[in-house]
């Protein structure tokens, strides 16, 4: 359970306060309801590039990082297909510095051409370091457009190609800022040894003067139901053949999500999962294998992926996975197996609440997704899943028609 108080400013900024007096440190988390799914198809990677620009100076403050470091604070940010999230931890006595910095960059960036020039280069090096200069690094650049034909999830958050990042200009930066970086498109969570009154006073002082803006409705094209299996084969300079099988599932907070999530755990979360037990331990077909879901807000994916042992063909591996799936679909999951994955999920959830910053983020994500209570309902949703739910969801999702398969061959 994560306790919280809530208020909203006149400009529409939602504020949550999670009090914890056991630490001298405060966490300040701001989530903007914009991610790579909000990009245009010919300007991908922009939400993430923009996140870099948020550290390049704001209207009244030339450097974001230095003043924060000076008061003993740390910060970072990340962008996903759904959201952009910024966070600070700092000594609670210096919390006003966080309000000062975050509110000024919400008010306006400096829109400095030099910052854009440099960050374009930085992001291009990031693109290369993480996606191109790594074995299997480009897997998601290829899988996304295979699984999604219409929805913007079809491009990766880093961008579809480097050229899109190179082509970004200051006008794009300005319009993106004024379209998405609005107080009424953001949620602020403050956690730590601090009273609600103090947060209220600081929030009113620093954030309330920022004018609200007009939000355009998000009309994303939704992915049509996949009716035929898809297949892609690529070759790359990697040592082991790999196989990826992805299936469309529901979104993070849609009915049935938890059953699907637990189904993926039964299949391939840990060493006692079905895929690992059968295809790594019993018959040594795979070097590694696992299953997981993307947990995106719009309908996501379940992924089964494995690296094959040398001497086993991808086709054999594919057939072996299919056999495990057939057995999973035909025979009901035992209560014991369900209890196991529930215990794992429960344990992960409790551990995720140990860190103050994670508690702040959990609240921010839940509120952004539509209901802050999602953060505290998760446990009962997990416990409510039945053997029948698993079987029903698995039979709905794990069909051949709903599957996109990629063979990633070593050359």
């Amino acid at each position, binding site marked *: 359970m994560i306790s919280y108080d809530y208020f909203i400013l006149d400009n529409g900024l939602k504020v949550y306060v999670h009090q914890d007096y056991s630490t001298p440190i405060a966490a300040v988390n701001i989530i903007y309801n914009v991610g790579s799914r909000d990009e245009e198809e010919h300007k991908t990677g922009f939400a993430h590039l923009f996140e870099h620009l948020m550290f390049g100076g704001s209207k009244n403050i030339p450097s974001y990082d230095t003043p924060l470091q000076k008061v*003993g604070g740390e910060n970072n940010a990340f962008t996903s297909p759904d959201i952009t999230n910024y966070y600070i931890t700092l*000594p609670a006595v210096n919390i006003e510095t966080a309000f000062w910095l975050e509110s000024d960059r919400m008010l306006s960036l400096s829109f400095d051409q030099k910052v854009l020039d440099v960050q374009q280069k*930085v*992001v291009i090096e990031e693109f290369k*370091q993480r996606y191109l*200069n790594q074995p299997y690094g480009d897997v998601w650049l290829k899988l996304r457009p295979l699984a999604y034909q219409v929805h913007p999830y079809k491009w990766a958050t880093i961008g579809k190609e480097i050229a899109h990042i190179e082509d970004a200009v200051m006008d794009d930066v300005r319009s993106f800022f004024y379209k998405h970086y609005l107080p009424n498109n953001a949620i602020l969570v403050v956690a730590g040894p601090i009273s609600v009154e103090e947060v209220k006073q600081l929030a009113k002082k620093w954030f309330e003067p920022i004018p609200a803006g007009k939000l355009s409705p998000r009309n994303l094209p939704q992915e049509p139901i996949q009716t035929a299996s898809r297949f892609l084969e690529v070759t790359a300079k990697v*040592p082991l053949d790999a196989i990826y099988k992805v299936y469309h599932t529901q979104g993070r907070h849609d009915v049935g999500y938890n059953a699907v999530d637990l189904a993926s755990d039964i299949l391939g979360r840990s060493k006692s999962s079905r895929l690992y037990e059968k295809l790594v331990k019993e018959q040594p077909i795979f070097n590694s294998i696992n299953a997981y879901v993307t947990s995106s807000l719009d309908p996501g994916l379940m992924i089964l992926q494995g690296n094959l042992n040398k001497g086993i063909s991808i086709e054999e591996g594919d057939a072996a996975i299919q056999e495990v799936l057939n057995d999973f679909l035909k025979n009901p999951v035992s209560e014991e197996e369900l209890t196991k994955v529930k215990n794992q999920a429960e344990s992960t959830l409790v551990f995720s609440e*140990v860190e103050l910053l994670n508690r702040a983020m959990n609240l921010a994500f839940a509120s952004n997704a539509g209901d802050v209570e999602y953060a505290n309902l998760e446990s009962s949703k997990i416990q409510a899943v039945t053997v029948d739910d698993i079987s029903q969801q698995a039979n709905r999702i794990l069909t051949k028609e709903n599957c996109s398969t990629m063979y990633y061959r070593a050359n």
Partner: protein
Amino acid sequence: MILDRVKSPAFQTIKQVSIPKIESIMLSNGIPVHYISIGEQPVVKLEISFDAGNWYEKQNGVSLFVAKMLGEGTKKYSSSQISAFFDQYGAFIEFGHGLDRANITVYGLTKYLPTLLPMVKEILENAVFPEDELEKFKKIQLQTLEVNAGKTSFIANKVFRKKVFGDNHSYGNSLDEEAIQAINRDTLLDFYQSFWLGKKPRIFLSGKITESEVNLLEDFFGKNDVQSIVKDISLNKDEYNLIEKSVLIEKEDSIQSSIRMGKQMMTRKHPDYFKMLVLNETLGGYFGSRLMSNIREEKGLTYGISSNIAPFSKAGYFVIGTDVKRENTQQTIDEIYKEINILQRELIKDGELEVVKNYMIGSFAGSLNTPFDILDRYKVILSEELSLDFYDCYIQNIQAITAEMVLEVANQHLAIDSLVEIVVGGK
């Protein structure tokens, strides 16, 4: 009143951080147990740590294999049964391995600790390293190694450690194909018997716990006789001289180069340790560091560059690491030397030194957020046999560092000629 958004709000420098105290007891057989109970979440972490890391092995890879294979079969249970057991209770078991020590760590909900302990004991006392599991494990390791061999950063790290510690120092060892192939069940059993079985570990317990969890440890681990191992076993660690300053490993198909530069460095007990910490932070320890400001934020040559001090029991190293576009490799190396040179010639300005120190102190305070973090700090003190007030004095020690001291250690410990330079990729 109009809000002044230009002027920064008033702030305080952290003078002191009160680190919650731990409790320590001794089991009947002399095993020390250190524990702390804080936090609201009903979780527990149990770590049983042995002097069984790289330092103690005669054959490359053996200490790693022993640690990683403890859970692959015992007298009573198979590998699969062991995994299934921990999974059933939503617990996570990890087999940690480092240059000095190795450990078994279990995370779980506190209510399951009594149920989990018998299996932990079984693994510790009755591991059998089954032949078939060893073969599977070797195969997985070999293939993982092959995947990693495709990563310039992985190769660079490995070559760097080898260069810095030399061929005859176990800190320089990392797994290679030959080492993996050479491992057999007998060598594992031998190491297990010499460094794990019946040996005296340190036990660390943290989370939301009560006396009853602590008392359980006596029942499970306090009864058998245990021996300390000879800590300073010397394994022909030849004196090491830097012979080859730069190493270039060409990888034609790589679009970036991984650069690692550095040298062997002191342990935490060295009188210059805190001076080096501040120097390191200034040079490349945080986002506002000189290397980040110059090479990323000014020139856009990389996604990230950092420097690090890694102290272990017997020695340590200092490393600067970054990945850059191939054609920018030499420019980046030149800029790194330039920044070190500046630190050797010019005193840091007060403003910058203040930022560095405040940042270090703030992030130290911020790193003590969970019961696990706090006990981990103590674990370092206890395992390295440092003075118990090491962290209590941490802030004072950082505050005491002057610009002159930083300049002095930059000259003394970062002489340009003494740094190795590893490039994997191309220039």
